[in-house]
């Protein structure tokens, strides 16, 4: 038991931070907000050289086979720098392939991922925004060696720049809930796919993606047809925990800016940071981000250990949703008017952290999941001990 970073982990953090400090200015972040594809191809290539895309990929495809915690630390730094690269969506999608795909799929797709030559994303949500199996209506109808996908996905991250998209659909017509779901590796440029941009306050790339009779080879199913839900759950848990890592990284930088601002901005003859109300607000902000960070990395660590981690993931996300938002909103307030100005950098963090709090599960959803594990499974609960049965 030692929840602090060890030497290897510190090395990862230091080198990522040093790299991004040099390579990822807010000027670049702003440019990429206006960019058609929304990401820096140059930066994407450079981080591939650093091995970020391959960090948790198997060695046989050129990856480093490192723990997810390491990728979490890198995403924390990417969040801190608001690095305009599609690392999160690529990681979510390709980790599903790496963990649950066939050897053939891995050999076919992952070397390019590791080399930084492809961008990936994933598509789960449709009209119902919840991360429950009932929310998936998209149909995948067997037709010869293919499935034909029909339906509309919403809030697909980085779709315009993606080469491949892992899509969740119903392979069993008329199936309900967790039954009959499958994951497909879909070429994002397939015939029958069209996308419409969604305009978000984060100014990032989110899409509505329509699938009309899109043919996908049967070989592209991840796992067994119709039995995809456990794979989806693992994909979402990993993705949610990694999103939290990105969020606490961004929120940390954001509150650091407010704390620094409070030290030099004066009012009534003294730094505003000397007023007890501002001090206590800053103390709260620090503790909120600390709390989110501890919860997040416990979740990632448990996934690495192969332990049940759904409750931990939901703890992290529900907490980050509320407390990271509170933290960055208080940063805005401490800055007063200037924080509200486009030309001042703080808003770059505020808008992204806010958007991330609304994605990959609301606080209500995640708390319902926790309550289920705590209450509905018989046995006595004790804090710090595993729950009575896997949630």
């Amino acid at each position, binding site marked *: 038991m030692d929840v602090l970073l060890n030497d290897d982990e510190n090395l990862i953090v230091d080198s990522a931070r040093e790299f991004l400090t040099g390579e990822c200015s807010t000027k670049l972040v702003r440019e990429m907000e206006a960019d058609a594809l929304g990401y820096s191809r140059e930066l994407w290539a450079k981080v591939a050289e650093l091995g970020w895309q391959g960090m948790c990929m198997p060695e046989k495809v050129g990856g480093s086979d490192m723990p997810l915690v390491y990728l979490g630390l890198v995403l924390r730094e990417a969040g801190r720098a608001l690095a305009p690269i599609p690392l999160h969506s690529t990681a979510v999608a390709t980790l599903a392939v790496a963990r649950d795909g066939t050897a053939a799929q891995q050999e076919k797709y992952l070397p390019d991922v590791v080399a930084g030559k492809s961008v990936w994303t994933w598509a789960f*949500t*449709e*009209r*119902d*925004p*919840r991360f429950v199996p*009932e*929310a998936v*209506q998209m149909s995948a109808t067997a037709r010869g060696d293919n499935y034909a996908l029909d339906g509309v996905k*919403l*809030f697909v991250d980085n779709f315009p720049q993606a080469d491949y998209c892992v899509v969740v659909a119903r392979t069993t017509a008329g199936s309900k809930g967790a039954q009959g779901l499958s994951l497909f590796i879909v070429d994002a440029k397939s015939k029958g796919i069209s996308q*419409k*941009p*969604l*305009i*978000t*306050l*984060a100014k990032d790339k*989110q899409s*509505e993606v329509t699938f009309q009779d899109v043919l996908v080879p049967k070989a592209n199913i991840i796992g067994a047809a119709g039995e995809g839900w456990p794979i989806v759950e693992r994909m979402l848990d990993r993705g949610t925990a990694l999103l939290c890592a990105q969020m606490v990284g961004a929120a940390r930088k954001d509150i650091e800016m407010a704390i620094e601002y409070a030290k030099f901005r*004066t*009012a*009534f*003859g*003294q730094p*505003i940071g000397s*007023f007890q*109300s*501002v001090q206590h607000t800053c103390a709260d902000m620090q503790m909120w981000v600390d709390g989110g960070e501890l919860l997040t990395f416990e979740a990632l660590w448990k996934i690495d250990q192969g332990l049940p981690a759904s409750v931990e993931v939901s703890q992290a996300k529900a907490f980050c*949703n*509320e407390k990271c*938002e*509170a933290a960055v*909103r208080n940063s*805005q*307030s401490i800055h*007063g*008017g200037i924080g*509200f*100005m*486009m*030309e001042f950098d703080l*808003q770059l963090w*505020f*808008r992204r952290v*806010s*958007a991330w*709090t*609304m*994605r990959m*599960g*609301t*606080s*209500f*959803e995640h*708390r*319902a999941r926790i309550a289920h594990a705590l209450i509905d499974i018989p046995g006595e609960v004790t804090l710090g001990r595993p729950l009575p049965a896997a949630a």
Partner: protein
Amino acid sequence: MDFAYSAEQEALRREVRQFIKENVTPELADEANPESDVERPRGQGPMAAALYKKIYDRGWLGITYPKEYGGQGGDRLTQYIVEEEFTRAGINITLGGSGAPAIMAAGTEEQKQYYIPRLIKREVSFCLGFTEPHAGADLANLRCSAVRDGDDYVINGQKMYTSAAHMSTHIYLMARTDRNAPKHEGISIFLFPMDTPGITVRPLWTIQNNPTAPVGTTYGNSRTNETFFDDVRIHKSCLLGEENKGWRVGSMGLNLDRVGASRYLISVRRDEDIVNWVKNNRFDGYSPAENPAIRDKIAEMWIEAQVCRLMTMRSMSIVERGGKFTYEGSAEKVWAPEHGVRVTEAITQMLGPYTTLLRTSAHAIEDGVFAHNVMGSFQSGINHGSVQVMRDQVARRGLELPSSRRPKKVEAK
């Protein structure tokens, strides 16, 4: 104790609603709203001008101002009712900030006769020149100077966040007239046209600038400005009140600006929106309205909104009796803005990713109003007296708690 409006007041409200129903089309509300197009002068599109003429003819502009200055000699409650209905419809019928009340309180007869009728008819509009780069919460720290030179004053300096400066006819400016006097005692207020030579207005874009926010989203505007004064020469008759006595005049105006219909509504209208949305909409198989945890949160927010409403009613009651606030106005200015943030953030978790979508996006809910509010709702806790300063005032004026050993408490913007 009486928690209802009189039959007369209810009749007035129905009349205003009927007027709005008949006259305020979506296109017009959009045109009239200064946030709908950042470059168009405030409320001066042709449809809006015609509408304001009609509203003026009904006697609903400048209700509380004396008839001799073009007002109606009416009471604040009447004004409140009318303002509430128009605000909800996205039409701003106020005289635009604290200039007019300050003129009524401190102006010369000539100033009153010139400005008040024109403000009511919307021929004149003020932007507020108070804040500076180093004078925000600590407004009295301002540096912009006005130096007497014969019959004139010469103004030099910079003002920040002069919202609407690019579309106002005049400025209501606070400047330093005595560098050697104590902080609060060398300040004066001036009123003068924005086309006076030497004034430069530069846009500052806010985080709500692209795309622009829907009607009445938040206090945050998509554009504000910084305004520079370079040897701006104005006649001494532009002085409002006495020289070096401007601090009190300015504060009084700000105090009045902390209560009222639009400030109340800005903080609670999202409560109405979310209830009305969830009760009429669903996401395919999922209805947030059927989730008891969400229902619990909606009710919690609704109760808070009622407290905001009742605090506003309390302020109106005090004003109606001719009384003065000790802390009640400040309390309203803590409670409502902080509630506005709480309900905004609660909604993000009720609607999830849909709350990230802005006005022009496919799938945006209610014209993206909730998303825009996420970006702007905290502004209401900063503007016109931060919630920190307001809490200080509740504690010190209302509860008579002692000042700490810090520089003397001051009235702050």
